[in-house]
């Protein structure tokens, strides 16, 4: 090989290396292009934001524990987390940490390992409970001989959220009938609260009272839709949404979720925390059905998921948002079965005004539940807009949803039956979960004195 050839090869290698470096560098900083760096398929929970490497990773590709907590700490606290980090940082648990370091989320929830990833993004072998609870049979004779993988898969325990599964709760609600005497969900009260907070605002606006710039032309249909909304009744006029005092823009053609958050802060934050809004939360383009990993209808594949995707702009019909908005897009068995279920007919009756308010069951009744809050001696109700908040493990729904209408025993059994969930609860649970029975039995044998006193 001549010297000239060798020099040319060196130059070619250097140029190639430099070119590749520039390409990869630009790719890493250009949003979606960062996919070339992914070490493996990202889990269902995080794939939407997988190109934002720095959100979860340190510059040296470590995982930031605080990144997990930034998105999940509030829900863990609300769930009264049964295994919080603080329980494991006591030095007396050094041996437990050596077996299973529960101080770090990634011990159980590793990313980019699809072959190891099970539901809820769990990557630990299914016997992880045995690391600390192998001798549970000593305390609970009912648990002697139970298979090691059944702690979290038999409808009995969750690692984090056991608010509807702890023993005393089971005992307290054991005798509830399958269907409550007066099954009703809490009624939304945002309008009432808004009225109390803005007593000076002119209300019940009409089309003639709209305050959009006079030089613009408006679709009469849109104006009519607005005039028929809770917005118009509450005195929310065009410029309240279509102008931005922060930036000085006198007219914003397409207000974003940030504008909605001006009045609906809690709802917007919840929306950004779930699969519908998590891309927006990371300043990526909105989620579309085409990006989903669960079945969606192909004709709406590219519809962008913003607030107005469900709450169509100007009409803001919450009844539409609670059913039709979901069914227009989702195409899984559970959704398709809804129109054949009793719940659907109940929902239609409520919308038609032939049933009592709060007795209908829409998609939103279970997946965007109405939550009761109490603070400072007052009580209010908000709609949880993070549909993932109570989705998995599904017995998280028991307290926020099921118990409005159903007994605890019925709810546990129903949610533990995948076929029943799939057909949208047409029929009865095929299997009974024994947890309530065991809890009652233990109270009966262990606490005769307390029962006699009652």
């Amino acid at each position, binding site marked *: 090989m001549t010297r000239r050839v060798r020099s040319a090869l060196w130059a070619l290698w250097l140029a190639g290396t430099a070119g590749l470096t520039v390409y990869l560098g630009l790719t890493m900083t250009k949003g979606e292009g960062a996919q070339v760096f992914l070490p493996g398929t990202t889990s269902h929970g995080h794939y939407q934001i997988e190109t934002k490497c720095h959100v979860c990773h340190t510059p040296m590709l470590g995982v930031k524990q605080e990144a997990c907590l930034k998105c999940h700490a509030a829900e863990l606290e609300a769930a*009264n987390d049964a295994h*919080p*980090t*603080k*329980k494991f*940082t*006591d*030095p*007396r648990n*050094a*041996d437990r*940490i*050596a077996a299973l370091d529960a101080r770090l989320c990634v011990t159980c929830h590793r990313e980019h390992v699809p072959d190891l990833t099970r539901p809820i993004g769990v990557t630990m072998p299914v016997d992880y409970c045995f690391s600390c609870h192998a001798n549970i049979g000593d*305390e609970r004779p009912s648990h002697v001989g139970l298979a090691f993988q059944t702690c979290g898969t038999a409808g009995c325990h969750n690692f984090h959220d056991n608010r509807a599964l*702890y023993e*005393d*709760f089971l005992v307290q609600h054991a005798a509830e009938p399958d269907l409550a005497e007066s099954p009703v969900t809490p009624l939304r009260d945002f309008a009432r609260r808004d009225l109390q907070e803005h007593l000076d605002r002119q209300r019940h606006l009409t089309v003639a009272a709209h305050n959009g710039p006079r030089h613009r032309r408006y679709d009469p249909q849109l104006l009519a839709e607005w005039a028929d909304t809770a917005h118009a009744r509450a005195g929310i006029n065009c410029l309240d949404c279509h102008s931005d005092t922060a930036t000085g823009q006198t007219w914003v053609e397409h207000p974003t979720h940030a504008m909605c958050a001006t009045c609906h802060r809690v709802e917007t934050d919840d929306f950004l925390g779930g699969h519908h809004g998590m891309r927006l939360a990371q300043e990526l383009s909105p989620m579309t059905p085409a990006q989903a990993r669960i079945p969606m209808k192909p004709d709406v594949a590219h519809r962008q998921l913003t607030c107005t995707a469900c709450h169509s702009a100007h009409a803001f019909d919450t009844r539409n948002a609670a059913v039709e908005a979901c069914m227009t897009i989702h195409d899984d068995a559970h959704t398709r079965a809804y129109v054949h279920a009793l719940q659907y007919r109940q929902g239609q009756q409520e919308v038609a005004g032939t049933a009592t308010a709060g007795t209908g069951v829409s998609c939103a009744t279970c997946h965007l539940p109405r939550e009761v809050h109490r603070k400072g001696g007052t009580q209010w109700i908000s709609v949880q807009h993070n549909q993932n908040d109570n989705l998995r493990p599904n017995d998280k729904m028991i307290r926020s949803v099921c118990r409005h209408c159903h007994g605890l025993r019925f709810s546990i059994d129903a949610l533990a039956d995948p076929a029943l969930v799939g057909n949208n609860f047409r029929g009865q649970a095929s299997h009974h979960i024994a947890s309530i029975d065991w809890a009652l039995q*233990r*109270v009966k044998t*262990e*606490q005769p*004195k*307390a029962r006699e006193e009652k």
Partner: protein
Amino acid sequence: MKAPWLYISLRICGAIACSILLLGCKQGASEAAGIPPQKMADALHAVVEADRIVYTRNVVNRLTIDEKVIKASEHWQDDQALPLPAQMFRMGAEMVTEKNVGFTYSLLSLWPVNKQNKAKTKLEQEGLKFVADHPEKNFYGEEKLGNTMYYTAVYPDKAVAPACIECHNNHKDTPRKDFKLGDVMGGVVIRIPVR
């Protein structure tokens, strides 16, 4: 220089002497300025014990037994009740642990209602047994947990109000049902990492 080896030897000896002197000064200063682990643990326990007794007597016992205006419950959020004294203690201990300020503490027992609070380490077992047998004395020792050596102090935790014994003697998970007022029911364990 005619005798560089002598000069070099003097420099080395001087350096060693200064190092020894400085090291000695540093250790001396450290010992003089530092607080012995036992004194530190005793001081921390005084605060923890006082808060615990005040909450048990003046809040829980007064409101649940004397005045009967509210219940105390293990599920205090669901039951809209007062947290139990042991829970109050644990919540504070966990908050301190999260701050990582150089010590931890916990409430353990040879007869725990919550089995997570039974003695785990050999020193815990020894210490809890000692304070149960010697209610007026504390127990001190050192133990290695993980890769760290801890100074561990165990203090007797006594039944200071009727609420303590009423709850523990009647709980379905209690392994002992004959506690009386003044009995040692467990121990406060304080750990300070020393090496």
